[in-house]
C-alpha cells in the first residue's frame, strides 16, 4: 500500500520527554479527588 502524502519519518518519530506534563496530570487528578470528597462531605 502506498505511503504517499505521509508526514516525513523524522517528523513522525519526534519524541520528547513529557515528565512535567505527567506530574501535572497526577496533581490535578489528586486535587479533583480531594475536592470531590470535601464537596460530598460538606453537603451530605
Amino acid at each position, binding site marked *: *500500500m*502506498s*505511503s*504517499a*502524502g*505521509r*508526514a516525513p*519519518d523524522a*517528523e*513522525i*518519530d*519526534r*519524541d*520528547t520527554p*513529557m515528565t512535567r*506534563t*505527567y506530574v*501535572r*496530570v*497526577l496533581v*490535578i*487528578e489528586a486535587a*479533583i*479527588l480531594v475536592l*470531590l*470528597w470535601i*464537596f*460530598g462531605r*460538606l*453537603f*451530605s
Partner: protein
Amino acid sequence: MHLLDWIVVVVYLFWIVYDGLRRSRGTDKVDGYFLANRSLPWWAVGLSVMATQMSAVTIVGTTGQAYATGLRFIQFYFGLPLAMIVLSLTVVPFFTRARVYTAYEYLERRFDVRVRSLASFLFLMGRAFSLGVTLAAPAVVMSAILGWSLPVTVLAICVPMIVYTTIGGVQAVAWTDVKQMFIVVGGMSAAIVILLYGILQQVSFSQALHLAGATGRLNAIDFRFDPRETYTFWSGMIGGLFLMLAYFGCDQSQVQRYLTAKSIDEARQSLLMSAFVKIPLQLLILSTGVLVFVFYLFQAPPMLFNRAYDARVAAGPHGAEYVALEREFGAALESRRQAATETDRVAFLAADEQVRQIRDRAATIVKETTGDSRYNDVNYVFPTFITTRLPIGLVGIMIAAIFAAAMSASGGELNALATASIIDFYRRHFVKEASDAHYLMVSKGATVFWGLFASVVAMYSANQGSLIEVVNRYGSFFYGSLLGVFILAILTKRATATGAFWGLLAGMAVVLAVAFTTPIAFLWHNLIGAVVVVAVGMGISLLQPPPSPPRGFGRAGRPASDLG
C-alpha cells in the same frame, strides 16, 4: 417539537454529511483513508478521541444515572489519567514507530498470525455489538420522544454517519468529531444555564446543593472495598485503570485515532488532553443530571419518564391502581416541594422516599402489565427534560447534540471496524497483493457492511437497562484479555505464540464464567481477564523453548521489548 426545532435538526444532519464529504480530500489512498496520512494536529486528534468516547449513551444514560444516583459514576473514570500516562510512555511510541494500521498487526510480528487474527476477531465482535448498543441508546429514547419508529430513528442516525465515514474515511470522522464535540459541550452548557435559572427562581444555589446532598447525590467517592459494588473508588482506580489501558491501548477504535497524529509527541498530547479534560467533562454531564433532579423538586415530573406503555397500562388489569398511584404521586410531590422550599431536611427525605416508592410501584405495574421485565426509565429523564422544558430552538440544538454524539462516537468505531477487517483479514488472508484502489474500494465496502450490521444490532438492543452500563459491560468481556495479550507481547521476551494464544482464550473463558456465575462488578472483569491471560500465557510459555528474538519492529529498528 416546534417547526424551528425540526429545521435545526434537519439542517444539522445535512451539514454534517456535507462537511464530512468536503473533508474527504486526500483520502484516495488507503494511508489517507485509514490514517489521514498521519497529518492531524494533536488537538483535533484529542477532541476526536474524546468524541469517540462521548457517545449519545453518555448524554442520555449518564445524565439519567446522575438523576437517579448522583455523581458516583464519576469513579468509573478515576483510572483514566494514570492510564493515559502509562500509554503515553509505552504503546504510543511503540505503535507509531511500527507504522502499523492496526494494533493487532504487531501481535503477528511478536507472536504469530493466530494470535493476531484471534485478537482482531475479538475486537471486531465486541466492537460491532457495542457499536449497535451505542446507536441504540439515542435511537430507543429519541424514537419514544419524537414519536418516530425505531427503524426510522436508527436510520436517521446511521445513514449520515455511514455516508461521511464511507466516503471521507478517518479524516472526515476526525474533523466531524471536532465540530460535534463543540455542539455537544455547548448544548450541555446551555441546558445547565436553563436548569440553574429555573432552580434559582425557587431556592438559593447553596440550598440546591444541600437538597441534592441530603439524598446522597453529591457523594461522588465511595471508599468501601466491595467487589460487588459497581462504582467505588477502588473499582474505578484499579478495574477502571485496566479498562482504560485496554480501551485506549488495544482497541483499534482508539489506537487508530492517535495513529493519525503527526508525530509521537502529538499523539501523546492528544491522549493527555483526555487525561486533563475527561473527568471535568464527565462531571459537567453528571452535574446536569443532578441539577435535573433538583429542578424536578420544584416542577412536577411525570411519574415515569418512559411513557411508551401508558395506553397499555391504562387498559390493563392494574389500570385503576395506576391512576390512583398518579394521584398519590402528585400529593407526594407537593409534600416534597414544600419540604424542599422550607429546607425541612427530615420531611424532605421522608417525602423523597415516598416519591421513590411510588415510582417503583408504578414501574412494577408496567412490568407486570407488559411483561417487559427490563422496563427502565433512567435513559428517558434528560430527553424528557429537553423536550418539555427547554425553549424553542434550544430543543432542536440539544436533539442535534444527541444525534451528533451518536454519530461522532460511531463514525470512529465504524472506520476502525473497516480497518481491522481489511488489514487483519482481507489483506492478510485473502487478497495479499492488489492495487491501492482495490483496497480502498473494499475498505469502503467494509465500512458500509459494518454500518448496516450495527444498525440491525441497534434495532434489536432496545430496553437493556442503563445503556452506558450495557456498553461498558460488553467491552469488559474482552478488553481485559486483549490487554493481557499486549502485556505478554510488549513487556515480556519469554512469552511464546502458543502461550499467548491459549492465554487469550483462557482469559476470555474465565471472564465469561465470572460474569455469569458471580456477583463481581464488571469493572473488575478487566483486571481478572488481564491477570488470567498473563498467568496462563506465561505458564504455557515456560513449558516451551524460549521464542526466537522478535523480528525488527518499526523503521527505527528497535526491538520489541524496548518501549522508547
